[in-house]
Every structure is written in C-alpha cells, then in structure tokens.
C-alpha cells in the first residue's frame, strides 16, 4: 500500500497525546522543519505507523499496536504546543 499521512494517526494516537494528535505540532530534529502531525508522511501500515518528516523523510516516531496496546517510539521529534 502507498503511504498515508498523519491524519490516519488521529485514532491510534488519541490515547497517547494529551490533545488532538493531528493538530499537535512537532519539530524534526534532523532538518528543523516544523509541521503538524497531520502533515507528516506515514509508512509501514499495517505493520505499524512509521511517521516520517515531510521535508527530509527522517523517522520522527514509530507507533505500533497489538493486543490492544499502543507503543510509541520517539525517534527524532520534538513535540511543540498545539496550533
């Protein structure tokens, strides 16, 4: 399947983010780009969600779900405040 974007994370990330995930802004620690989570690119479904920077393709965060458990692995993302 072709990649998706961060909109698809709204459900899977809803329990992990204090606020609405897709409007949450973050900064890529590799290229400094600032964007909302919705604007990130999402690869790897259905194994997991590999969230990549729209600017440099670097891995920002990886989210996997199994047995009703959601795991978030932060790679290269600094979370900023909401819009």
């Amino acid at each position: 399947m072709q990649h998706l974007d961060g909109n698809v994370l709204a459900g899977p990330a809803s329990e992990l983010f204090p606020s609405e995930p897709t409007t949450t802004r973050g900064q890529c620690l590799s290229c400094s780009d600032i964007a909302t989570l919705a604007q990130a690119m999402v690869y790897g479904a259905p194994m997991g969600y590999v969230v990549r920077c729209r600017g440099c393709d670097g891995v920002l965060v990886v989210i996997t779900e199994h047995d009703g458990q959601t795991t978030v692995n932060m790679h290269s993302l600094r979370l900023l405040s909401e819009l």
Partner: protein
Amino acid sequence: MAIFGGRRRNDNPNLPPGQHLTESFPVLSAGPTPSISADDWEFSIRTEGGDIHRWSWQELLALPAEDVTVDIHCVTSWSKLGTGWRGVSLDTLFADVDTGLDYVMAHSYGGYTTNLPLEEVLEGRAWIAYEYDGEPLDPEHGGPARLLVPHLYFWKSAKWVRGLVMQDDDYPGFWEENGYHLHGDPWREERYA
C-alpha cells in the same frame, strides 16, 4: 446478519498458522522507495576486524546465481506460495569472510535495518535476490536487490539491501526495536516480542 470473516482462511497445510493466501504481491515499506542506479549500487559485508568485502553490481551479477522457488510469509498475515527468485546465495558471498561473531545486521538503502542469526542466512537459506518471476526486481519490491530469507517473516528479507554488518549479539533492527519478534519464525508465529 452479515458475518465478517476477514481474509483469514487456513485450509492449506503449506500455510503457517494465522496466514492466508494471496495471489497479489502486497507492498509494505517502512519508508519511501529509494532510487539506486546499478552504477551506484554496492553490497558489502563488514566483520568485527573492520574488514569490508564489497561487490559492485557487475561483480554481483558475475557470481554464480541460483533460481529458487520458495513460499513467503508476511507478518501482516498474507502468504504467497511458490514464488520464483534469482539471486546469489549468501554462502557464496560469505565464502571468504572470516568472522567469529554469530549475528548479522542487514542494512538497506533508505536506512532500514533487520537483525538475523548468521547460521540462519547460511547453508542455502538466504540470498541476495535481483530477479522475481523472471524479471528484474521491481523497486517497490526491493530492487535492484533485496535480501531473501524465506523461512522467516518477510520483514527479515530486507528490501534495497546494501550490506551486512557482523554483530556480537542479536541487537534489534528497525521493526524488532518496535515490538516485533527478534527471530520471526512464521511456523511458531513469532510475530511480536
């Protein structure tokens, strides 16, 4: 009432538990498809001593190739039986490699990694494959060349493989770091850690 069955039918003895057959070839990638020209392509094996064994595209093609027909099993539950590949056995590539370590980390163009025990990629169990179904391997399926380790879940068969680095322990690769099983045997359903 409509009953949802999902794509999970297992009446074929060649299917590991929890798998279903597919005729198509679904694509699953952890990142964008890298474009690597044959001129720039290189494959290497690096050992603990820092020795690096390298092969250019031409050198890879000049090695004895094997045609193999194998079943492949993706952890997302599809399996494909009797797939045909052409490539170079890792036994051939390891022939002159001297190492005392028991594990390898496969690295790909684009940054993907996956870990494997050395003994599971030797003795005719793994290849660097560059043809699928008689055609050059499609970039979306890992071309120019991918690792092929069909007895493990297909995420171990790293697409766009660039090299193997010997390691002293079974350190996790990309998916293994994110909750997937270090080993990944489909017959034992080693999906998650």
